[in-house]
């Protein structure tokens, strides 16, 4: 009994959902990731939307299949020494870059969150919110774009803001949620409000 609660305690200590995000402020990809994650948190926790994993799962599946192809090629070559394994190897080698290309093409759109707002009455189809962002290398301007697709009318509306990351991080590299969260909420509310006035 003591051992089990001990393990749970360790697991709790491992998860740090509430600890403020601290990253290396000079590491561009860490900055973008933490801003993306926090924007996600705002939409999912504050507005209680439900994340749709289809896009991400698709990416994971393509990557997994690519790795499988590589493993198959490896094993085939091991079992049937080289000259005989040529056709199988050639097939795997040609299909591998194709999968990588399809993956890169998906990443181009840089959407990192697809979330659904379930209609409280349960009658109309879900509204879809999409988040995408960009932060150029060595640049400090972060662009966050929120896209709203109405479930009923299938109309698409979007809003974005571009701000310097210096506005959201303090000198130590800690993300200041009090500065960031209002920006995300403003973006969201501007789209939500338009909807209500129609």
């Amino acid at each position, binding site marked *: 009994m003591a051992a089990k609660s*001990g393990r749970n305690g*360790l697991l709790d200590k491992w998860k740090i*959902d509430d600890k403020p995000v601290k990253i290396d402020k000079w590491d561009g990809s860490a900055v973008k*990731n933490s801003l993306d994650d926090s924007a996600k948190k705002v939409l999912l926790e504050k507005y209680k939307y439900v994340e749709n*994993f289809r896009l991400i799962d698709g990416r994971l599946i393509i990557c*997994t299949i690519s790795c499988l192809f590589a493993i198959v*090629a490896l094993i085939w070559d091991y079992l049937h020494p080289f000259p005989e394994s040529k056709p199988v*190897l050639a097939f795997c080698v040609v299909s591998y*870059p194709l999968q990588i290309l399809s993956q890169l093409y998906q990443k181009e759109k840089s959407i990192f969150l697809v979330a659904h707002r379930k209609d409280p009455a349960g009658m109309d189809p879900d509204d879809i919110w999409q988040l995408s962002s960009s932060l150029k290398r060595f640049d400090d301007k972060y662009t966050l774009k929120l896209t709203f697709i109405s479930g009923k009318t299938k109309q698409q509306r979007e809003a974005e803001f571009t701000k310097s990351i210096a506005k959201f991080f303090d000198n130590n590299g800690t993300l200041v949620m009090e500065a960031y969260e209002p920006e995300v909420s403003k973006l969201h509310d501007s789209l939500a409000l338009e909807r209500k006035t129609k």
Partner: protein
Amino acid sequence: AVRAAVAAMLSLDFLDDVRRMNKRQLYYQVLNFGMIVSSALMIWKGLMVVTGSESPIVVVLSGSMEPAFHRGDLLFLTNRIEDPIRVGEIVVFRIEGREIPIVHRVLKIHEKQNGDIKFLTKGDNNAVDDRGLYKQGQHWLEKKDVVGRARGFVPYIGIVTILMNDYPKFKYAVLFLLGLFVLVHRE
């Protein structure tokens, strides 16, 4: 003691990114690692298919071909069936039962009408021919022993491979650190 070690690790900041990840993101990190390994594998296998050689890139391990090739040179091979093997040309071959490819020059050839050949090799810098290296009772090499012909080379770079083979602990340490870095670092 394990709990204490884990607790100590938790206080290190560099694992913070990992701790914030959900199941999908963790799986993605592992996939990332797998993709890098797979890409390297596919490039190697791709080279094998394109060049027709079992070992398209080899490192010269000894000084037996000086002054043409030195220890540590990297050789790029092709193994096309159409390439005839002629006396005086350099071939890379493997002796049956041995893993290590050898880069030497062709000394003598016996050729049959149907194109089968038996040939003898010798390193430029060696005093005697390679019969001493061949298998017990084997006096000639055949086409099936050929790994390829050198088509291009880069000097000295292969020294890293030789070092990694001589000091395997160094190799494992480098690979382990690289693997850890890929697993923990987010894109």
